[in-house]
């Protein structure tokens, strides 16, 4: 019975999310193109992190107008790049009451620990909805970037590809072309259990705004990703973060904020807020940088939303500040350590405890 209900809802949704329908909404509601990218000064890059309200949509037009409203707010403050939260690509599902209900069922099953039910919903999503939703996601954000003439980091979406499910992020350039595509690299145990596959490559993009990388969700909670990005020349990390039920600044500091301090980078964190059915989301958007680059406060925080209300956080960053003076305490290198670490990583996924036996109380080297 449920399958039949889903099938008819999918049919109705496919008519509503048709690419020509998206085009029609953009034509009916033209955007004013920004001129902020006509002249770019590396000492004055204007970035926007979105604290986006999670709300139900009555129609496709309702969804697109919400995105346009956010981008217009960012434009008003002179933003050159706008970053949306993780899973923003799934929002068109909220147009359908049936799939909104399916989403609720998913979260209920998750809370009750019924992973099999969650997997069934995701399997259905992969087989029947992923392509439809991805096409809507891609077309909408490409047009949003093209019509606003800004860089738009379209958070992330779930995408079925070759029988596997990935969380994929896109950055669209001002001409509407995708200039950067990144799969989530480090999955939580839950994501792994749900059958989501990790990416294998870290992509970077050269733009007039600097060299950019995307680290969605908990990718920015591991130094490995940020260090690889920095070594490859990244200057700004785009970190769409997952919906959270509790605002915890300390927990968030373990992620992008810490990476900024370790690797001398800027990071943009976007979040969802608001009440959707019985779920309340409270994450706060923030723009972070190294201590040395946040000269006024020396806090490593360029700016962070103060309230839980929807807003667009726009701040200026100076890429020249990333050339921070050498820290005498943290600038040495040790080839032996590099070799040991490379050996440890290259022996994955065998249990490392076996490969790297603990030193016992008797076998430690003599000085």
């Amino acid at each position, binding site marked *: 019975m449920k399958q039949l209900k889903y099938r008819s809802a999918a049919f109705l949704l496919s008519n509503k999310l048709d690419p020509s329908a998206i085009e029609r909404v953009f034509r009916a509601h033209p955007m004013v193109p920004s001129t902020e990218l006509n002249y770019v000064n590396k000492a004055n890059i204007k970035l926007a992190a979105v604290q986006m309200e999670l709300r139900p949509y009555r129609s496709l037009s309702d969804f697109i107008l919400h995105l346009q409203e956010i981008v217009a707010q960012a434009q008003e403050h002179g933003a050159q790049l706008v970053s949306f939260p993780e899973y923003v690509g799934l929002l068109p599902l909220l147009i359908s009451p049936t799939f909104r209900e399916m989403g609720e069922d998913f979260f209920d099953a998750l809370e009750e620990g019924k992973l099999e039910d969650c997997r069934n919903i995701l399997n259905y999503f992969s087989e029947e909805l992923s392509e439809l939703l991805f096409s809507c996601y891609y077309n909408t954000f490409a047009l949003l970037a093209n019509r606003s003439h800004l860089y738009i980091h379209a958070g992330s979406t779930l995408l079925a590809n070759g029988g596997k499910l990935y969380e994929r992020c896109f950055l669209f350039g001002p001409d509407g072309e995708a200039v950067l595509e990144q799969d989530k690299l480090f999955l939580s145990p839950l994501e792994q259990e749900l059958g989501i596959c990790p990416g*294998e490559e870290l992509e970077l993009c050269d733009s007039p705004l600097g060299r950019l990388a995307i680290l969605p969700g908990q990718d920015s909670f591991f130094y490995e990703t940020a260090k690889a990005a920095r070594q490859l020349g990244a200057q700004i990390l785009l970190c769409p973060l997952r919906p959270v039920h509790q605002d915890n600044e300390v927990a968030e500091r373990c992620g992008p904020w810490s990476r900024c301090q370790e690797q001398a980078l800027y990071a943009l964190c976007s979040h969802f807020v608001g009440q959707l059915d019985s779920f309340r989301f409270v994450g706060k958007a923030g723009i972070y940088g190294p201590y040395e680059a946040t000269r006024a406060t020396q806090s490593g925080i360029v700016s962070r939303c103060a309230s839980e209300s929807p807003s667009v956080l726009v701040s200026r960053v100076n890429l020249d500040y990333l050339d921070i003076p050498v820290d*005498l305490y943290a600038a040495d290198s040790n080839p032996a350590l590099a070799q040991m670490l490379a050996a440890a990583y290259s022996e994955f996924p065998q249990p490392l405890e076996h490969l790297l036996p*603990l*030193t016992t109380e008797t076998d430690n080297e003599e000085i």
Partner: protein
Amino acid sequence: MARTVVCICEAFEKPKALSDLVIFSDYRPSVPAGDLQAYLKYCSNYAREYKVYLVPHRFMVDNRLYLCLFDPNGAIIGYQGALHRNLSTQSKVEPASSVHVMQTAIGNLFLCVDTDIYYPELLRLAKLKGADLVVSSQYIHSYDFKPKRITTGIWSAAQQNGLFVVGCSNAFSAVAAPWEITPDGTGFLVQPEHSQHLFCKLFFHKLERSAMGGSIAEKLNPVFCKRYSSIISQK
């Protein structure tokens, strides 16, 4: 091993009752070479007398900076040399080339010597080798001390690897732990203070409750880490 009681105190001061692990705090960068032999002998006696594991002050041998661990019988059971140097002393110090995690009755211990605490790759390797307790002993020039020294040092090491980090320096003493298991959610069991005295109980089973607790290898992306290992481990 369910819990370990850590005590930081001035050298050879009587430890607080019930201490399992004592760490000596000192204002000097390291024990002067001429005093080393006598110093280590006193340390051995101290560990035996109070029946504690002891991490004494840093010392130099053959141009390498070391920390060591005494067991409650007064025997040295492990050394760790500094793998990184403060660049202001680079010409006088040789880097070590091995990493030891010591399996003891008070936990799997990694001794983090001086500026080594600022290298996340080293702490990751220690965690991969099974460490659940890190003792960081460092010297910070007073004009170099700033919040960054704590947040990018012991605090970050604890959060990113899901382990306890006891920080002992001339500038502060503190115990960092994963924020999920600290009562005030700050990531510190003992807040950093300019003090040479600290006392703290560490309950190892609580580490499992943190996102980065337990085996870290399961949480990393093996294909990514392997593919990017050369650039991840470079400076």
